[in-house]
């Protein structure tokens, strides 16, 4: 029972990271109907920037995090404006290939700057020694609490931004119906750029949070590829159109992976992700939080 509680807590904190990546993918999907495979590369790159600052130049953790998020904003905006915009109205697979090209480019660039061989470790923001419950140690540390609070705060911020501000309303309008929004005076292009920038910034936060959870996380590919796939899995479980679904999907995936990793075997997390995804989609082919829509004739 105690182990079950521990695994759940552990799953919640990793699940929050998946939820953040999933939310970033959902934001981009809603805005431009593109699955951004470069997300993994973008957050890898921004995490490397933060790592360079904290570990090589002794910059404060929070300053480095802020720089990473700012870098995410820039990378996201540049990617949308110069790479995605030209293929936005073409065949959807072309946009997928463009984002794959960007992913490969960013991995190569990171390899050129920091090398492919080493896997660097990133010191987490807070202690990773678990809280104590009586005589036993919980699998939940101040750093895990920080992850949960940080992601929750960002989710709330995004909720307020999208539901309560004029900017958010315009962004939703631009995503929902670009033509009509444009006629009503919304600068659709700019808002799509802003949407990508925000999503990349959220990814940057997720990258820095994830890097602190395991030693040797910071390397051009590998863990970040898995993070992208887990994030995408979480987003698909929730239903790609639903931000709430992304968060629930992330938590569900994190918790289930935590159970499977301990009760079955911890060598094949990505295989579990596949099986969980398959199980959910067999029951609900458009994800847990999809609205039932009639198929267009």
């Amino acid at each position: 029972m105690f182990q079950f509680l521990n695994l759940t807590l552990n799953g919640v904190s990793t699940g929050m990271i998946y939820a953040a990546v999933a939310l970033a993918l959902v934001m981009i999907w809603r805005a431009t109907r593109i699955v951004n495979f470069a997300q993994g590369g973008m957050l890898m790159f921004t995490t490397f920037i933060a790592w360079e600052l904290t570990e090589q130049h002794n910059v404060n953790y929070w300053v480095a995090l802020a720089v990473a998020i700012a870098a995410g904003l820039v990378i996201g905006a540049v990617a949308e404006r110069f790479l995605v915009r030209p293929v936005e109205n073409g065949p959807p697979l072309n946009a997928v290939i463009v984002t794959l090209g960007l992913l490969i480019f960013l991995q190569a660039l990171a390899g050129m700057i920091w090398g492919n061989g080493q896997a660097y470790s990133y010191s987490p923001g807070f202690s990773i020694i678990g809280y104590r419950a009586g005589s036993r140690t919980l699998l939940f540390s101040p750093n895990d609490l920080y992850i949960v609070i940080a992601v929750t705060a960002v989710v709330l911020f995004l909720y307020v931004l999208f539901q309560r501000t004029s900017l958010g309303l315009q962004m939703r309008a631009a995503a929902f119906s670009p033509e009509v929004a444009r006629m009503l005076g919304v600068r659709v292009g700019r808002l799509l750029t802003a949407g990508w920038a925000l999503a990349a910034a959220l990814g940057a936060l997720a990258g820095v949070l994830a890097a602190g959870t395991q030693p040797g996380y910071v390397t051009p590919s590998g863990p970040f590829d898995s993070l992208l796939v887990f994030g995408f899995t979480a987003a698909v479980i929730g239903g790609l159109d639903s931000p709430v679904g992304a968060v629930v999907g992330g938590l569900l995936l994190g918790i289930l992976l935590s159970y499977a990793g301990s009760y079955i075997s911890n060598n094949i997390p990505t295989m579990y992700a596949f099986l969980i995804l398959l199980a959910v989609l067999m029951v609900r082919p458009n994800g847990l939080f999809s609205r039932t829509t009639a198929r267009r004739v």
Partner: protein
Amino acid sequence: MRGLLRSNLVRHTLLALVGIGLLWLLISALPGYRSSNQIAPIAYTVCAAAGLSVLVGQSGQISLGHGAFMAVGAYTMALLQEHWVTGHSNLQLVGLLAASVVVSALFGAVVGVAAARLRGPYLAGVTLALALGLPTLASYDRLSGTLGGSSGLTVLPPVSPAGIDDSRWQAFICCVAAVIVLWFLANISRSRVGRSFRAVRDDEIAASLAGLSVARVQVLAFVLSAGCAGLGGALLAMLSLTAGPLAFQLSLSFALLAAVVFGGLGSLAGAVYGSILIVLLPQWSQDLASALSIGSAKISNNIPLMVYGVVLALAMLAAPNGLHGLLRQLARAATGRRPVRKLTSRPMEGT
């Protein structure tokens, strides 16, 4: 004679035989290292990419995980060779390759049944997770004994006939396999089955009203495509002498999709151009990197990857319908003829 040539089957068969002959001439004319480094990898990539092209371009279902089917083919070959077929004559090789095709096609049927319920990005998500997940099974505690863990299983190469060196013979086997795959898929595309693929792709409801079982057609597309990918994977295992998880990383699946989209979705010729590109481009940029003799290993090691990424993105910006689409457009402009047949498609559109 004219009437015979008008039959697709006869024309494709003649083309295939001519193709095999020309490829044999090419293999014997070029130095042996080109056979093993370039011709053979292109040939096995063509097997997988052509199958993927039919799946994505003609039946309208996306797969980001074709590397997983290649892995199934490779492991089938290695396991059969380890446990049941001890010799390695050419006849046995044909049997092993056929078995790999069958097993991966069966696996494709299982995935296809699930895929038939899913559309667009949801299918993309499932196949992506499969591509990342399946190779990790090799290090699963209960299977790592059978599957050889992270270093994989050994595969024995076939014996080449007297007077022909091994690399040329293996490249020839790969080329014959690729031509057979292309011949098979070309006939399928022009047949009732191919038409049903395109009907389902373009409008599922209209297709089902016309009496097609949409799910069955979609599963069939997955089966065919997975079988071709399994053959490609078995050939890869034969060439690299191992079947291991490292050969089937996510980058392989992405490269296959890139080859298909770059060449032109749904087009078999496009799958060939695309495969040539994704095999040769990293090698050329490697040569370029060493010719430039940049001091830092970090930079020169990553030049091929960077060129690859940049070419992928730029190619999509420059030729949105792929190379095949571009060539068609040029040919049309030159002859002034109007477009005839539309084999390209837009999967992932809507959900």
